[in-house]
């Protein structure tokens, strides 16, 4: 028997299930008032610097059906590319949001400010993006992805350039539909399947 490592193994994930909102978004579950303050209601406060944008979309399964029970979380820096807590970060940007697919229509909306560019560890500049984590019934481990923007220069982004099949890059790019409005669908499986990340 070889020596034992003193490292631990990560706790295995399990699905968030259909009632994830009870614990994470009580008002959505029909339980308004369970907490005095729910977290992640908005990633920005009034007066946040930068362009306020609205991203709408659906989470779509392998049959083309929009999930009605998906919950998402997003994480991003402020308009200048600073994450909350960093020196000089915009105090009106918490950077964190929880949002869910509508239980009747499956549509979600994320209202935030457009993030600034952030340097990767390699020194390369990453194009502006929002990190998104999707959980739901039927998803055994949360799916990570990113939202980029079609009206930004994404050509030098290190992550997008790592995608071998460049025809898949467009699955990570939000389409602009009007001033400050974007659409971004998350396709779990099948044609135009979203690129999901392991980082």
């Amino acid at each position, binding site marked *: 028997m070889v020596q034992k490592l003193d490292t631990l193994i990560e706790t295995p994930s399990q699905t968030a299930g259909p009632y994830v909102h009870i614990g994470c978004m009580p008002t959505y579950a029909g339980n308004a008032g369970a907490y005095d303050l729910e977290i992640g209601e908005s990633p920005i406060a009034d007066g946040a610097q930068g362009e306020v944008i609205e991203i709408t979309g659906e989470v779509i399964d392998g049959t083309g059906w929009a999930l009605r029970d998906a919950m998402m979380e997003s994480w991003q820096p402020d308009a200048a590319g600073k994450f909350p807590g960093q020196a000089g970060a915009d105090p009106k940007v918490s950077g964190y949001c929880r949002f869910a697919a509508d239980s009747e229509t499956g549509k979600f909306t994320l209202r935030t400010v457009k993030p600034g560019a952030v340097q990767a560890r390699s020194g390369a500049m990453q194009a502006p993006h929002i990190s998104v984590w999707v959980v739901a019934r039927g998803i*055994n481990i949360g799916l990570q992805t990113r939202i980029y923007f079609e009206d930004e220069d994404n050509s030098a982004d290190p992550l997008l350039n790592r995608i071998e099949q460049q025809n898949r890059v467009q699955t990570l790019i939000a389409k602009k539909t009007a001033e400050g409005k974007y659409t971004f669908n998350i396709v779990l499986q099948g044609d135009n399947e979203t690129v999901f990340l392991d980082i």
Partner: protein
Amino acid sequence: MSDRIQDRGPLIPRNRAAHPPAYDIDYKTSVPRSPRWSLLSLESGPSEETGPTFGHEILGEWDNNLIMNWTRGKAPAVGERILVHGRVLDENARPVPHTLVEIWQANAGGRYRHKKDSYFAPLDPNFGGCGRTITDENGYYEFLTIRPGAYPWPNRGNDWRPMHIHFSIFGHAFGQRLISQMYFEGDPLIYRCPIAATIKDRGQLDTLVAPLDMAKARPMDFLAYKFDIVLRGRRQTMFENKLEGM
């Protein structure tokens, strides 16, 4: 948080074998909800190594007491009273202090307080089913609650979920984000459950089974279960300024 994010070590790459695969035909909803393409792997960066932080100002007086929090202390929920407690650690076996832990669960009869749950076991007017707390400086947390009941669900012809409590843990980085479920020692439904069985390594599944902890039980009041949670750790950054392989 350090202003120099690059000084914080990258996250240890996730050991995907420790987790359930996306696709498992016995958990039917995973079939249309699992990606067919492989994940895109790359080293973590600022977007994954930073994350939201929450202070005690978000917590209400009763937030980690599910026996009393739905009625704000006016009347207790019905069921087997238990303390669920443990530590949040990382893969380097270091405690994860000051991090938010959220739980949700069904009531003693297996009924959830959710607009979409129509199981005919009744709601308990004194039980909501959600709780949250923040780990202390040693990564320790505790909840007082009632033991949730098992419940049937439409999967195969006669599938029942074991008694379980859902856990959501943040850690200090968005890339550490984890949702899982805690099961109870001795429950015969655990090894019949297709959701538990999405975890293919029996040893890993057993890390979700909380043992009865009589030392923490309070006589004439509540039993206790111990549930420790391990999040991803960070690599050392000592040699980061050298080229790979040097």
